[in-house]
């Protein structure tokens, strides 16, 4: 366990101390900033349903569908690529560790860091949305939401979002090793699969991580499909209380990781300019 623990700790430390961490922190704080602006400069939230919509829209459409994948894109494409570009990969592939072990340890460390950061983003968003808001006084205007307990939804999000981080990071790590221009392909994937395909009522949505996250979240928060504004019949077909998309999501992550370990084992991980002297 010695070399593995050393690399795991080192990766976490490098991720947190890297100057580039400012960008993901800003990205993940964006929904909170928007809520703060709304609460300070817009009309007070008139009823519970509006508060419910504002909160879940922030989590669903900003964080889960866009910002968390974006942060995973940044870290996933650089998981091996950053060390390859800097030439430091040579230190990791010539020590007492197989290449696949090196990849999986770095991956696990990144999942941990990003899951904590993303959960922290949810904590901030939740606090800024509900601190000082008297839900009981506005509940009478929205009888359907009178029993809504935001803390339950918050806890579900805290548990499910790390699974999303795992899925997104696995996919972007794979893309990072597939091509010499991983950023272009990753952005293409993010836009077409996670942003477009996951939102249109076609079978292709099953290829997106976002879809399985939604299935899982709708399984524990049954009111959630109201946000997606799709025909009732389709909504019932896709999302049902108690359902989970986690097995499929873990399947995607597993397949992506398996392919990535194969690539990392068979490919030369050398910066092009060094390889050609």
């Amino acid at each position: 366990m010695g070399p593995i623990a050393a690399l795991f700790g080192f990766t976490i430390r490098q991720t947190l101390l890297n100057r580039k961490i400012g960008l993901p922190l800003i990205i993940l704080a964006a929904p909170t900033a928007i809520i703060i602006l709304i609460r300070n400069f817009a009309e007070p939230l008139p009823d519970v349903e509006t508060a419910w919509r504002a909160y879940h829209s922030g989590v669903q459409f900003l964080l889960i569908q866009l910002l968390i994948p974006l942060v995973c894109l940044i870290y996933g494409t650089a998981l091996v690529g950053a060390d390859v570009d800097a030439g430091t990969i040579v230190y990791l592939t010539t020590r007492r560790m197989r290449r696949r072990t090196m990849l999986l340890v770095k991956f696990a460390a990144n999942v941990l860091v990003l899951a904590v950061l993303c959960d922290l983003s949810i904590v901030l968003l939740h606090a800024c949305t509900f601190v000082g808001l008297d839900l009981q006084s506005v509940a009478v205007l929205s009888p359907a939401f009178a029993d809504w307990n935001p803390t339950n939804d918050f806890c579900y999000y805290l548990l499910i979002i790390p699974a999303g981080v795992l899925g997104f990071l696995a996919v972007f790590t794979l893309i990072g090793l597939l091509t010499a221009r991983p950023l272009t392909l990753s952005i293409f994937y993010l836009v077409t699969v996670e942003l477009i395909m996951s939102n249109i009522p076609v079978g292709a949505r099953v290829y997106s991580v976002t879809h399985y996250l939604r299935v899982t979240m709708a399984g524990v928060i049954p009111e959630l499909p109201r946000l997606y504004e799709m025909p009732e019949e389709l909504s019932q077909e896709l999302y049902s209380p108690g359902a989970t998309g986690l097995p499929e999501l873990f399947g995607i992550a597993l397949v992506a990781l398996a392919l990535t370990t194969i690539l990392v084992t068979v490919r030369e991980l050398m910066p092009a300019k060094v390889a050609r002297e």
Partner: protein
Amino acid sequence: MPVIELDNLSKWYGEVIGLNNVTAAIDRGITGLLGANGAGKSTLMSLAMGQLRPSKGSIRVFGQRVWDRPGVLSQVGYCPEGDPFWPNLTGYRFVLFLAKTSGLRGSAAVKAARHAIELTGMTEHAGRAIRGYSKGMRQRIKIAQTLVHSPKLLILDEPFTGTDPVARHELGNLLRELVKQGVDILISSHVLHEVEALTKQILLIDHGRIVAQGDLQAVRRTMRDRPHAIRVRVDQPRRLAADLAALDIVAGLKVSSPDTLTIETAWPERVYDLLPNLILDRKLSVREIAAADESLEAVFDYLTHREG
């Protein structure tokens, strides 16, 4: 058994040839791998460290294939060329981390890291971030990480680049001491004189082919009639030139700038021996003594021409 065996080894980068059908055995002790920039030295070393896959043939270290074989690779200390660093780390953290990834734990890793840093004369600077290091300090901390896990074989890619003469001398002594302790070394350089000070066993490589192999003296005899150029940066180059002009081993002298003298000679090792005494006698202030034709490309052209 040879330490490294190359068997019909070729490496192509698309249409560019890195190594071309090389067969050789690198024996125990220090072996100098000489060649101009782009000759194939780093390709050979990267193949030996399992960083590149052979396009054809095979390479074995301690009799074993190396690709993704941590068992073999962990017996080797590798000093890559260039500046591959995590620049925010201190020198100590860098060496300690690599000690731990080599399987050393706790206090053993700390002790090994401190020892390796001390061996390379970096103790004083080990607490500073690598991003603030000079080129020479970076080279030394890279060498420290090659030593930290007490490897049986060192593969050093241009380790002297950027080091000052004192550091070069100290590193040379360190490498000689390691060989006495049973460590084998493959060291690359494009400066003949650097390697000559360490070993007589060389592998001369050019355009991916081995053009000479074996005892350095024998190789040198084949190119005795070709003058070598030595560049001396000194405060009074004309005064030094006047002294050197009297020597029959000097074929030509040129003061190429107010502080630079270029010496042409067929006997560079004798000139290198003489220069320190001349400089001390005249109380001159020297900033650099280096091979002017550092790339040795002319030497390889010469050897290639001779072969053709």
